[in-house]
């Protein structure tokens, strides 16, 4: 019964979405206020119905109602509760429903908080949002109905893929989707602005928080996914340039570019057409990712069960949404009035260069992802695209980007003083060179690229700190006065500093972990010892263990450092009961400059086990860096200008004299 209510709610949501997609649009065109006002209740109602539908699905999973097809396929009565809930989005149908739920959630947020938006812009943006919503609800209803029944109902279900039974991964898809799907709001605003033929600072201020929120969630989602790969797959790596990883990385890169270009529109009324294009393309890459994952054109570890009919449907949505918006762009964007002028060396110039680099980097990732497919279809020979390709193309683009991120914030708007900025950064430069020296010393200069990466990370970190110190005039005026300035700095400024510092920290971690990771694989018997770096691992023994729905072999290592006891590690090799698939649970002990990482493999039956021990330098820095970026985004999101909508310039002007008192 509850399942039927959910199904029915989904249909009702579709009806509301269709109404929301058409009436407000016509209303905005013809100036019919009542029709425009319809967008708000429709958006809220659509969200409410989808919430009911999703609730019904989760309920079916929690009570393990095996008369529902997707529940039978992905749940088992013995599965712990949290993974029953996670199973609701751990498969194609349920995750698609989550997709539309989040889509309508963003629509509802705009409807609810957007009372001070220009009514036409709001009506049009919500209508565009509902168009996407209708398309995806139709998709769900016709090709991937999560409420399909199974008769007769089986007594027991299959299980959620054991690899996915992990607390980190349980929250990875919702986070990622909020990020992916949230970019739809920027897209809807961009299309609405193109229909209006007007884009200004207020538009940018309206778009930025939604983009920021999506970016925060996408950053968190990607980091969770990478972390999951790191400890669950047991290969000691955390990023594999898999097509599906790339599918989430491309919107992230574009979203980052969009965040930066929207600043230029907001502050200087320039780069308007470019920003609109970015807003369209960012969501375009989200759609592309959805297509790649769900259509089966590319094989990947992440791909959902595939079906060409679904692929065709998503391709249709992608072609319509992007084709429509890009046609609109080609038609309307040339008529946009060009805004403020600026010199090449200026904050605008730096942000534009940032955008170009990010867009090019996205293009290289896109090329790497699609090249095998394209070559195959065109009947050419085949090449494999792996890490070496990305090291050769992506890294050289990322390096100037990071160097630039240190300088850009110190340049003034309109016309910047490059010499002055560099002069203020001499200390940061010295710090970077020192860091590079240390990195060269570590392996006697064998890995110049790694040293450059560490140097750049240090540069960006120090430059970000310098920029903050400049803002509060540290050591130039009294410490008390500086402190007052620090308190009164806008939160957006802190957001930027935190996010930039986070990226710097992550870059250092990424560089170090890819350059200086070391690995030992050995057959070990109890009391054997293995030394890696300054740690030696003594295998104490392997004992059977038991979890709620799995049995495991658990190894116990005593780790010694300089002859003294350091820590215990307990890696496991699990065998889930329903799906006969062994999974490894790496034991990881983090400390400031790296991770101890131990994995136990198969036993040989004669008392020895294959054991893999990794020394993973600076990996915790990657996670801390991502956390800092997320934090930076949240702090920036809490900036008061998003709440009051006061023009930011006068806000800064007010804040500064107050600080100088």
């Amino acid at each position, binding site marked *: 019964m509850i399942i039927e209510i959910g199904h029915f709610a989904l249909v009702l949501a579709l009806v509301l979405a269709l109404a929301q997609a058409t009436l407000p649009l016509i209303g905005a065109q013809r100036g019919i206020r009542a029709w425009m006002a319809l967008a708000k209740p429709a958006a809220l109602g659509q969200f409410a119905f989808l919430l009911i539908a999703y609730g019904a699905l989760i309920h079916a999973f929690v009570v393990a109602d095996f008369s529902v097809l997707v529940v039978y396929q992905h749940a088992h009565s013995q599965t712990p509760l949290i993974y029953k809930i996670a199973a609701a989005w751990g498969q194609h149908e349920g995750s698609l429903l989550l997709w539309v739920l989040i889509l309508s959630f963003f629509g509802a947020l705009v409807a609810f908080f957007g009372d001070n938006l220009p009514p036409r812009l709001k009506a049009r943006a919500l209508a565009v949002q509902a168009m996407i919503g209708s398309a995806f609800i139709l998709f769900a209803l016709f090709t991937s109905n999560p409420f399909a029944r199974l008769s007769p109902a089986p007594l027991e279900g299959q299980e959620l893929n054991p690899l996915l039974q992990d607390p980190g991964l349980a929250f990875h898809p919702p986070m990622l989707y909020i990020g992916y799907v949230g970019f739809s709001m920027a897209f809807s605003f961009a299309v609405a602005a193109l229909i209006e033929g007007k884009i200004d600072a207020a538009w940018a201020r309206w778009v930025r928080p939604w983009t920021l929120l999506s970016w925060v969630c996408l950053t968190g989602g990607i980091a969770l996914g990478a972390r999951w790969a790191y400890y669950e*797959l047991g*290969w000691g790596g955390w990023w*594999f340039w898999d097509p599906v990883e790339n599918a989430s990385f491309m919107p992230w890169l574009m979203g980052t570019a969009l965040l930066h270009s929207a600043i230029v529109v907001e502050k200087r009324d320039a780069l308007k*057409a470019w920003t609109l*294009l970015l807003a*369209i*393309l960012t969501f*375009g890459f989200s759609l*592309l990712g959805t*297509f790649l994952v769900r*259509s*089966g*054109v*590319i*094989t990947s*570890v992440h791909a959902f069960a595939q079906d*060409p009919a679904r*692929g*065709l449907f998503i*391709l249709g949505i*992608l*072609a319509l949404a*992007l*084709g429509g918006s*890009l*046609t609109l*762009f*080609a038609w309307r*964007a*040339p008529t946009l009035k060009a805004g403020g002028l600026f010199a090449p060396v200026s904050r605008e110039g730096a942000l534009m260069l940032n955008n170009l680099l990010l867009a090019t980097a996205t293009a290289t990732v896109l090329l790497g992802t*699609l090249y*095998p*497919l*394209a070559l*195959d*279809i065109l009947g050419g*020979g*085949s*090449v*494999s*695209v*792996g*890490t*070496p390709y990305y090291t050769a193309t992506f890294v050289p683009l990322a390096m100037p980007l990071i160097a630039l991120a240190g300088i850009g914030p110190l340049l003034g708007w309109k016309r910047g003083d490059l010499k002055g900025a560099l002069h203020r950064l001499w200390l940061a430069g010295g710090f970077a060179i020192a860091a590079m020296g240390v990195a060269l010393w570590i392996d006697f200069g064998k890995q110049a690229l790694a040293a450059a990466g560490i140097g750049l990370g240090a540069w960006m970190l120090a430059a970000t700190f310098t920029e903050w110190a400049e803002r509060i005039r540290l050591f130039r005026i009294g410490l008390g006065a500086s402190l007052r300035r620090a308190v009164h700095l806008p939160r957006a400024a802190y957001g930027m500093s935190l996010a930039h510092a986070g990226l710097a920290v992550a870059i250092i971690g990424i560089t170090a972990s890819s350059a200086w990771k070391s*690995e030992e*694989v050995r057959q070990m018997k109890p009391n054997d010892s293995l030394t890696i770096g300054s740690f030696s691992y003594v295998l104490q023994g392997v004992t059977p263990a038991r979890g709620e729905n799995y049995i495991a072999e658990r190894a116990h290592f005593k780790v010694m450092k300089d002859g003294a006891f350091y820590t215990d590690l307990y890696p496991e090799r699990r065998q889930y009961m329903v799906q006969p698939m062994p999974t490894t649970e790496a034991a990881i002990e983090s400390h400031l400059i790296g991770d101890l990482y131990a994995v136990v*493999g198969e036993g040989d039956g004669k008392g020895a086990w*294959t054991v*893999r021990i990794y020394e993973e330098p600076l990996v915790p820095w990657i996670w801390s860096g991502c956390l800092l970026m997320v934090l930076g985004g949240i702090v920036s999101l809490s900036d008061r200008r998003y709440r009051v909508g006061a023009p930011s310039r006068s806000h800064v002007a007010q804040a500064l004299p107050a600080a100088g008192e």
Partner: protein
Amino acid sequence: MRRLFFILPLLCLAALVVLFWRGLDPARDPSSLPSVLIGKKIAAVNLPGLGARPGINTAEFAGDVTVLNFFASWCAPCRAEHPLIQELAAMPGVRVVGITFKDVPVDSEKYLAELGDPYAAIGVDETGRAGMEFGLTGVPETYVIDRDGIIRYRLAQPLDPGRLKDELTPLLLDLTQ
């Protein structure tokens, strides 16, 4: 001219959509690419062996039913299919050989030390030249070559128990008869 710049994104999209459209062709199963090589004689490839193991010389394949598996230590799905390669190696009359694709020999050795070495011979293809001869789309990739040196089967994805049972095993039984 300026107008063209604004139309460019649309043109790129059109190209992508056409690409994907063709990619969705149900006849094209991305996981088992029909290879133009099937039914042809195996390319002449001669590779040095990994460590002390014998290398790969395809000219010497004749007379045996051979399963040729491309793998690499950096390739995650290779690990996943490894137990199935071991099963194949246990089949009577089947010679399982491997080629490490764009892999550092030391890493390949570690990989084999950890997972076991089912291969009768392993060639080292550090540059990817041999991969090109086969039109490799990636690793892992598996070929079956009959006693006359003709390629009879190609799988451009990790081996799975279903394919092993339904496709490979019957073919190999047939070939080794």
